[in-house]
């Protein structure tokens, strides 16, 4: 009669749940509030991004790429565009490199700001969300005026970027970058030392360096665990070798370290933005922003891997081309997909409230996991 186990409870968190950041479903086994097992179930946002490439030509696929990671579309765009450029063996103009670096770092700040707001919302604080969005909105407005859309930029093209940055937009970015450190200071004042925040994030979800490497974790999650690995330093692409910036690293690998790492990354990105602006504002004679290729005539051949350090980690675009107008196969390596697998390892034996604190700190975004 009494065969039902009353101690163990299985609970479905998601796919529609306020704090799963999209449509991740977690099958959680609870004993009381203690988590015994977490099984992430993905695929609710699958759009067939990789298959789509096979029946579209290179330029047709370009606008779609932004949607792989809609919070930081420039990174996906760059990975894809760069892959095609590598296949064609072309070098883009130096100004285009600066513009790409500038926009990508702006995008990194935007992505981290959204993460910051949503993470604090997961922990129950409402105000940081709005403060983060106020700053993010400024960047979005700038990028909207530059590219024509707020999130799906479609701004990069094969051989450069589509439009030159007008000086007034550069000035707006400059205003933002000058003001931004004070905003970050405000977030830190509000959040970093708050005992409620520290008690929830410190010593939870500890990700050891070895585990992180076993799970191929990249990005801020890895750097918070003590490994100073950043593609921008390790194998600099674009103009990162000319820039002066640091890689924030923390040792412990708990949620708090991931938070601090991301906050510091925003500061470093801001430094990069200012350096790019220096070059773009001073050198006004250089107007070559793209190679003016005919995108419909692109018919490369070969196989290539293009890498980029996106806001969430190492993003790779692997193209295999056979000389026709469509790619033969495209494979995306997206960092969140690896981070999503971590949950069962690092959030096990925590309490249910900690699950959200740990999950939020990993900065997982679903469109990137499912593609």
């Amino acid at each position, binding site marked *: 009669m009494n065969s039902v186990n009353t101690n163990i*409870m299985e*609970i479905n968190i998601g796919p529609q*749940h*306020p*704090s799963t950041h999209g449509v991740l479903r977690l099958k959680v086994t609870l004993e009381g*509030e203690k988590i015994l097992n977490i099984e992430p179930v993905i695929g609710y946002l699958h759009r067939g991004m990789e298959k789509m490439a096979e029946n579209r030509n290179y330029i047709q696929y370009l606008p779609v790429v932004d949607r792989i990671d809609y919070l930081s579309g420039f990174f996906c765009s760059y990975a894809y565009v760069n892959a095609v450029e590598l296949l064609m063996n072309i070098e883009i103009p130096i100004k285009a490199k600066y513009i790409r670096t500038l926009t990508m770092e702006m995008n990194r700040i935007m992505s981290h700001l959204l993460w910051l707001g949503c993470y*604090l*919302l*997961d*922990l*129950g*604080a*409402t*105000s940081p*969300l*709005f*403060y983060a969005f*106020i700053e993010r909105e400024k960047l979005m407005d700038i990028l909207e005026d530059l590219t024509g859309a707020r999130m799906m930029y479609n701004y990069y093209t094969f051989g450069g970027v589509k439009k030159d940055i007008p000086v007034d937009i550069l000035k707006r970015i400059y205003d933002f970058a000058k003001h931004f450190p004070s905003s970050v200071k405000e977030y830190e004042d*509000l959040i970093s030392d*708050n005992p*409620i*925040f520290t*008690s*929830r994030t410190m010593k939870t979800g500890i990700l050891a360096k070895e585990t992180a490497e076993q799970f191929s974790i990249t990005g801020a999650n890895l750097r918070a665990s003590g490994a100073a690995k950043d593609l921008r330093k390790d194998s600099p692409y674009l103009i990162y070798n000319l820039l002066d910036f640091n890689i924030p690293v923390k040792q412990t690998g708990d949620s708090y370290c991931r938070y601090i790492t991301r906050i510091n990354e925003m500061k470093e990105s801001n430094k990069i933005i200012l350096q790019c602006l220096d070059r773009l504002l001073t050198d006004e004679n250089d107007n070559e922003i793209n190679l003016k290729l005919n995108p419909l005539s692109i018919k490369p051949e070969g196989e290539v891997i293009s890498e980029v350090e996106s806001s969430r980690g190492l993003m790779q675009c692997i193209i295999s081309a056979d000389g026709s107008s469509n790619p033969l196969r495209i494979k995306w390596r997206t960092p969140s997909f690896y981070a999503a697998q971590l949950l069962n390892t690092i959030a096990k034996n925590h*309490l*249910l*409230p*900690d*699950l*959200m604190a740990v999950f939020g700190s990993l900065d997982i975004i679903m469109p990137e996991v499912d593609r």
Partner: protein
Amino acid sequence: MGLFYVIYLDFMRQINIPDWLIIILWHIINFCFAAVLLIFIVLFLVLFERKYLAFFTRRKGPNRVGLNGCLQTAADGLKILFKENILPSGADKFLYFCAPLLVFSPIMAVYCLIPFAEDLTAYNSCCGVLLFMAILSLPPLGVLFAGYSSGNKYSLIGGIRSCVQSISSEIPVFIVLAGIVLLTGSMNLNEITKAQSGIFLNWNIFPSILGFIIFLICSLIIMNRIPFDFPEAESELTAGYNSEYSGMKFAMFFLGEYALTFIFSAFIAVLFLGGYNPPFGVYAADLLNLPLISGAIVKNIEQFFWLMIKTYILILIIMWFRAAYPRLRQSDAIEFCWYILIPLSVFNLFILCIIQFIRGCL
């Protein structure tokens, strides 16, 4: 009962209404007064909180319905009346219907105990403090019923959390209350208020500042407000114990929560901030030398005004916390109650004993 009861009795006797009916009618009038007050306060408070949080986060808040959004909550309330009542298939019907009542009616009942003014106390109980806390131990039970009966796992966790936290938060509250009773020598809320009359230095907050802080923290737990809103932590439990409720039943939980915020703030104001006493011990009614009856009425209104001011200052502070802080982990909060608040409240009681002893010697 006081002045208003005398006036009422006088009026009713003049129009020849039998005595038993007079007494019943008096209670009905009191009830209606509390109910109407509650509805208006809650509608106002919901709007107020939304506007206030918007103010902190650089937004405008609701500003479409009515003048600058003043009818927003009324419209929301109207909308919620027309919502369908849904009974989940796995629900325990009887408890599912009982739970909102069990949450809402005790909160409404404690409105009778608060002395809003000298003659404006619906039920002037001799042990009001005790009764207040005793009645308020019922809503967590309602929340537990709601969580259990909904047949939803999120609700169940929310309900259990509510029970757990009410146990751990009420102990420090009672120890602090013992200190207050010690200071004022009475359990009657009216007497406690009167003991604090005079200028603001006579208020209980000054000998018992530690007690005030403990009480404020525990009241946040009892009110389920951020940073202690575990039973309905939306990022963990979607909506916690009221996930499965809709329509009027949901409204009861929702109204109950705001009504509790208000009445508990008023309770703290009575215990620590001198209740209806004006901060400088002077009534405008006394200064104006008004005739007896109208003077007494003006004085009552003035007292009501002062209590409201104090209550709203407390509510402002409580909502300010909501704007600034994230939510604690429940296990931490309970640990905080047991390991820090209870020893501190005992320490507070000890200090108050010494103060009272010194006062007795002087």
